[in-house]
C-alpha cells in the first residue's frame, strides 16, 4: 500500500476540490497515482503488477520504443496547443502501460492540478497491451483562486491493443478564469474497447476538445459519454469523433448537456468507412436558463453496410413532469432536481462500479448546490 500523498501547500478547500474530481489523496481506493501540481511531478507510482505508471520523462528514458508512441496519433502540428506542448524542452505528463494480460480492478488516478502557473502542459501516453484492462480516473482541478487566469494544455494518446480495454474517466473542476485544451486521440485494435467519459459540472472559462478514436481492429468498440453543465460565461466546445475502419467496429457517442447560461457546442462525428460497422450519436440538451446549446451531430457513411444514426434534442423541463412529481409530495425544487438528476444519469456499460459511483458523486455535488 502506498503511503498517503502529502501536499503541505494544499489547502483544505483545494483538497475538497480534488476529492470532487475523484482524487483520493489517501490512495485507499486507488491502485496507482500520478500527481502533477503545476509543472511538478509529485508522485508517479502503481502497486498493481503488470501496470506501470511513470512520468513522461522517466518513461521515455526507460523505454526507447516509447518514442514510436509519442506524437503518433496526435500530430504535433495539429494546432497552436500541440505546437506549444511539442516545443517543451522539459515535457511533463504521464505514461501508463498495462502489460499483456494485466488488469486493475481499482482505478489508477491521474491528478493534474493547476495552482500558480499560467500554463500547465502535459503529454500523456496510455497503452493497454494485448488482453490488458486499464481503468483510469483523471481528475483535473485548479486551486480555488479566482481572477489569476490560466490554461491547461493536455495531449493524450491512447493505444488499445487486441482484446484490451481502457476506461478513461475525466472529471473537471476548473474555475471561471481557466481555459482548457485537451487534445487526444486513440487507436483501437481487434476486439479492443475504449470507454471515454467526460464530466464537468463546475464553472470553466473555456474548454475545447475533439477526441478522436480510430477503430482499426475488427469488432472494436468505442463509447464516448459526456455529462456537462455550462454555468454563466462558461464556453464548452466539446466533440467526439469515431472513425470505423474495420468490420464489426462500433461507436456510441452520448451527451447530456445542461446550460444555466453558458454555451455548449456539442459536436460529434462518426465515419463508417467499411461494411459491417455501426454507430449511434445521441445528444440531449436541457436549457435551464437562457444560454446556448448548439448540437452538431455528423454521421458520414461511404459504403454499403455501414449503419449510422443520430438523435439530438434540446428543450426545457416539462411542466407536466414536474407537477407529476409534485403530486407525490415533492416541492417544486425537489421535483426539478430529481428530474435533472435523472436526465444526467447515464449508466456506462462496462464501467467498473467505483468509477460509475465517482461520476454519480460529481453529479451529487452539483445537485446539492441546486444544479
Amino acid at each position, binding site marked *: 500500500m502506498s503511503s498517503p500523498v502529502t501536499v503541505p501547500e494544499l489547502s483544505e478547500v483545494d483538497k475538497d476540490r480534488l476529492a470532487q474530481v475523484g482524487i483520493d489523496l489517501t490512495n485507499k481506493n486507488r491502485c496507482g497515482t500520478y500527481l502533477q501540481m503545476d509543472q511538478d511531478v509529485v508522485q508517479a507510482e502503481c502497486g498493481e503488477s503488470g501496470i506501470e505508471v511513470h512520468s513522461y520523462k522517466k518513461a521515455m528514458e526507460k523505454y526507447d520504443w516509447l518514442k514510436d508512441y509519442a506524437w503518433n496519433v496526435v500530430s504535433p502540428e495539429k494546432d497552436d496547443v500541440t505546437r506549444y506542448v511539442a516545443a517543451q524542452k522539459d515535457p511533463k505528463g504521464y505514461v501508463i502501460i498495462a502489460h499483456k494480460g494485466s488488469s486493475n480492478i481499482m482505478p489508477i488516478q491521474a491528478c493534474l492540478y493547476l495552482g500558480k502557473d499560467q500554463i500547465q502542459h502535459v503529454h500523456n501516453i496510455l497503452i493497454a497491451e494485448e488482453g490488458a484492462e486499464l481503468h483510469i480516473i483523471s481528475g483535473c482541478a485548479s486551486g480555488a483562486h479566482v481572477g489569476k487566469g490560466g490554461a491547461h494544455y493536455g495531449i493524450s494518446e491512447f493505444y488499445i491493443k487486441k482484446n484490451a480495454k481502457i476506461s478513461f474517466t475525466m472529471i473537471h473542476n476548473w474555475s471561471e478564469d481557466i481555459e482548457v485544451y485537451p487534445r487526444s486521440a486513440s487507436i483501437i485494435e481487434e476486439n479492443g474497447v475504449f470507454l471515454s467519459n467526460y464530466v464537468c459540472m463546475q464553472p470553466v472559462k473555456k474548454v475545447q476538445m475533439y477526441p478522436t478514436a480510430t477503430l482499426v481492429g475488427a469488432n472494436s468498440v468505442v463509447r464516448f459519454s459526456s455529462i456537462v453543465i455550462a454555468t454563466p460565461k462558461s464556453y464548452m466546445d466539446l466533440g467526439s469523433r469515431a472513425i470505423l475502419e474495420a468490420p464489426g467496429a462500433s461507436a456510441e457517442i452520448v451527451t447530456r448537456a445542461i446550460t444555466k447560461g453558458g454555451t455548449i457546442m456539442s459536436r460529434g462525428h462518426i465515419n463508417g468507412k467499411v461494411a459491417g460497422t455501426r454507430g449511434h450519436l445521441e445528444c440531449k440538451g436541457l436549457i435551464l436558463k437562457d444560454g446556448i446549446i448548439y448540437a452538431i451531430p455528423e454521421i458520414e457513411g461511404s459504403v454499403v453496410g455501414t449503419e449510422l444514426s443520430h438523435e439530438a434534442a434540446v428543450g426545457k423541463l416539462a*411542466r407536466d413532469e414536474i407537477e*407529476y412529481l409534485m403530486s407525490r409530495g*415533492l416541492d417544486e425544487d425537489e421535483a426539478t432536481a430529481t428530474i435533472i438528476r435523472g436526465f444526467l444519469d447515464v449508466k456506462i456499460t462496462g464501467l467498473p462500479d467505483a468509477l460509475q459511483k465517482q461520476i454519480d458523486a460529481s453529479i451529487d455535488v452539483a445537485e446539492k448546490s441546486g444544479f
Partner: protein
Amino acid sequence: MSFCKDYVHVKSVNWGNGHTVCDRSMLQIKNLHVNIGDKEVLHDINLTIGEGETHVLLGPNGSGKTTLLMTIMGFSNYTITKGKIFFKGEDVTSMHAHERAQRGIGMMFQRPPTVSGLKLGKMLTAISRTKDEDITELAKSVHMDKFLERDINKGFSGGEIKRSEVLQLMIQNPDFVMLDEPESGVDLENISLIGTTIGSLLEKNKHLIKRRKSGLVITHTGYILDYIDADKGHVMCDGQIRCHGNPREILKDIKQRGYKECLECRHP
C-alpha cells in the same frame, strides 16, 4: 373538541355563532368553476366525500372527470375561477400540488408522463424519503421489482403503468386516493392484482367503522367496483355533476341506456 376525537381526519369547525360542530368530511367541493385557458370546463361542482367513503365518477369521454381530479390534485393548467376545495376541513383551493399531496391527497394517473432518465426506484426513494428495503418488498408485491432500474413509464405497458402508479401510492400512502380509470388497458390478471391493492389502499379490508381512507374513482367498465365497494356514484356530463346515486345502479342504467339521458338532463 372531545366530540371529534374518535375521528382521525376530523376537525371541529367553529361556525362563528358559538356552535362548534364536527366535520367528518374528507373532501368538500363547493360551487367549483374551473377554466383551462380561457374556457370554462367545469361548472358549479358540488361534492362531499366523507371519511372512509369511496365514490365513483361516471360520465362520457370528455365530460370533465379527469379535469376534476387534476383540479383537486392542484395541477397548474386548471384554473379555479370560483368556488372552494376543502380537504379535512382545510381550504386547499390555492395550494400547490405538493402541499395537497403532503396533506394526504394522492392520485393514480391514467396517462402519467414519461420522465426520461428518472428511474422508478429513484422516484420511489424520493417519495418515501426512507429506506430502500421497503421499496423492494413493496415493488415485489405488485411485480414491479424488475422495473426499479427502468426510466419511469418509458415503454411501460398499460398494466405496468397502473402497477407503477399503485406502487407509488402505496409508498405515498394518501388518506384520499383518486383513481383515474385504474382498469383501462389492463388484462384480467392484472385487474385482480391492481384491484386488490387499491382495495387495501382504501382500507376495504377494515371494518366500516374503522375505515379512514377515502377515494374517488373514475371508471367506464365498473370492473374495479368488484374490489372497492363504492358507496356513492356521480354522473358527470358537460362539466357538471348531473346526478348521484347507488354506483352499481347508475352503471347498470348506463350500460343499458348509455349517456343520452344524462346529456339531456339539465336539472339534476
